[in-house]
């Protein structure tokens, strides 16, 4: 029994477990001292959580795109962050035109719907043509090739937007009805955060039901499992792959506008960090798994928002909030080491990668 255990566990494993254990202990210790110091009231924690949920549901929407594309093509679409950026960036020009003409004051709901429509359309088109132009010709190439192409496409799109519209930060206009607070159960919450959460959850429900219940959704899942068998059932595999990019693009475009409305700005580089965070979320949830990506996104948003204060403040770290990205990416590394299949992931052996 012990012999068997000794054969399976290497020195590296032990070191890794020690690092993992130490981090866990530090987090625990940090949390205990933070809470005992009483720096934050419960209303602070509630604020952190709601902000985390809002941020996380945006990650979740982007993450579905990563995970679905991984499903059908077994590749990480590293240009997905730029798909996310292109929508709200274009939407910005619409928003400014509306704002100048007072349309946003007179017809705010219609205005917002049009901004969403334009942004989702642009993101969708970019995702669609990205697949058609950059990935389809490489369908049978070794797996590293489309990955490198994806990184190239990501830079191309970033610098395309930079070239066209400059490298400045463009402020989204204020929209009156999204400003201010609501009182919910006696808790003061920012309207925009609640709206982001509700919109993102609704979109994810639509997306999930589409994938689970419609014929096209089932066909996409079939293509994810076995392209040749899918073709033998009369499924147009190329069309299903395109559809996957279209759905991912729509979700990313919508997420982009929610992001722009919440943070009130767009710029050519805005897709990079949320893109990598959403990728992290997809890995957390188990890449290829749609509910996993949604869960992973929400979880990552929450952790990022709560952890700096909870884990780090008590350890005496100054300005812990600056470290939220470090926390997110440490989680990515930890998951890759200790549970590469993610929270809801299938076993790697079951995967026909």
């Amino acid at each position, binding site marked *: 029994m012990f012999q068997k255990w000794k054969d399976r566990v290497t020195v590296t494993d032990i070191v890794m477990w020690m690092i993992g254990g130490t981090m866990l202990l530090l987090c625990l210790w940090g949390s205990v001292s933070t809470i005992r110091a009483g720096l934050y009231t419960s209303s602070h924690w509630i604020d952190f959580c709601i902000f985390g949920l809002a941020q996380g549901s945006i990650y979740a929407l982007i993450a579905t795109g990563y995970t679905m594309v991984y499903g059908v093509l077994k590749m990480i679409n590293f240009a997905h962050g730029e798909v996310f950026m292109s929508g709200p960036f274009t939407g910005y020009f619409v928003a400014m035109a509306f704002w100048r003409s007072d349309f946003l004051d007179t017809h705010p709901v219609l205005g917002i719907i049009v901004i969403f429509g334009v942004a989702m359309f642009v993101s969708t088109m970019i995702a669609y043509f990205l697949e058609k132009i950059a990935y389809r010709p490489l369908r049978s190439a070794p797996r590293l090739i489309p990955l490198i192409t994806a990184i190239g496409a990501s830079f191309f799109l970033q610098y395309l937007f930079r070239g066209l519209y400059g490298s400045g930060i463009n402020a989204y206009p204020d929209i009156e009805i999204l400003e201010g607070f609501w009182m919910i159960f006696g808790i003061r919450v920012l309207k925009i955060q609640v709206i982001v959460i509700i919109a993102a959850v609704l979109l994810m429900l639509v997306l999930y039901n589409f994938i689970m219940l419609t*014929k096209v959704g089932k066909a996409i*899942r*079939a293509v994810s499992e076995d392209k040749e068998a899918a*073709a033998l059932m*009369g*499924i147009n595999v190329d069309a299903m792959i395109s559809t996957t990019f279209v759905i991912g693009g729509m979700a990313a475009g919508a997420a982009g506008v929610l992001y722009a409305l919440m943070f009130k700005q767009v710029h050519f580089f805005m897709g990079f960090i949320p893109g990598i965070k959403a990728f992290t979320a997809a890995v957390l949830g188990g890449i290829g798994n749609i509910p996993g990506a949604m869960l992973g996104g929400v979880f990552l948003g929450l952790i990022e928002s709560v952890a700096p204060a909870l884990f780090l403040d008590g350890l005496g770290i100054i300005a812990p909030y600056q470290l939220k990205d470090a926390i997110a990416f440490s989680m990515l590394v930890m998951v890759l080491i200790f549970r590469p299949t993610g929270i809801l992931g299938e076993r790697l052996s079951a995967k026909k990668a």
Partner: protein
Amino acid sequence: MAMLELKNVHAHYGKIHALKNVSIKVNKGEIVTLIGGNGAGKSTTLKTISGTLKPSSGQVFLNGEDLAKYPAHEIVKKGIVQVPEGRRIFGQLTVMENLDLGAFTSKDKKKDAQTIEKIFELFPRLAERCRQVAGTLSGGEQQMLAMGRALMTNPKILLLDEPSMGLAPVLVDNVFKTIKILHAEGTTILLVEQNARMALKTASRGYVIQTGKVIFEDDAKKLLENEMVKKAYMGD
């Protein structure tokens, strides 16, 4: 005119010359079998018919129409469906979802519902398991599902690639019984098998393929008597 005809078909995998001048005919209402050893080119022949591998030269005709210009998913719409080797069911989808996908090309929901009824009559086991995830089915049940899924397309001609592979003898009998039922109902069948004896007993005509070439073609009864075939493929 034959319903399905392969005329001087050659096929390549890169440099590997897998089919060499293969000509096969299947008439309406027939069961034709294609037998041969491992790696002889049986599956490749079916791939050239289904369109997942295009012939490097030669043609495949369905009722006189050259299929060269159609991609695999269009060929299914023309009425040719294949149950691939190793079943290839969608293991993470439920039994019902697998059957629904068989009807992917159909727009007629009412007809699909009738077809499902028929398939459940043929394979009552699938009805019992219809909500189960297909990957958890036994080998025999997976073969039923693979056939059921293909039948959902209401094919004119059914291509079966080693349907008895890896099944216990009782289940093998079941598979061949099902083939006879489908034939009696009017489906034309091209049956690929390594189990030459069973295949030739079920079929009306047969082809023997070896290293990519058709070496014999005859009535199934005569092939059963052929000394060379007996020796090479039936272990006598």
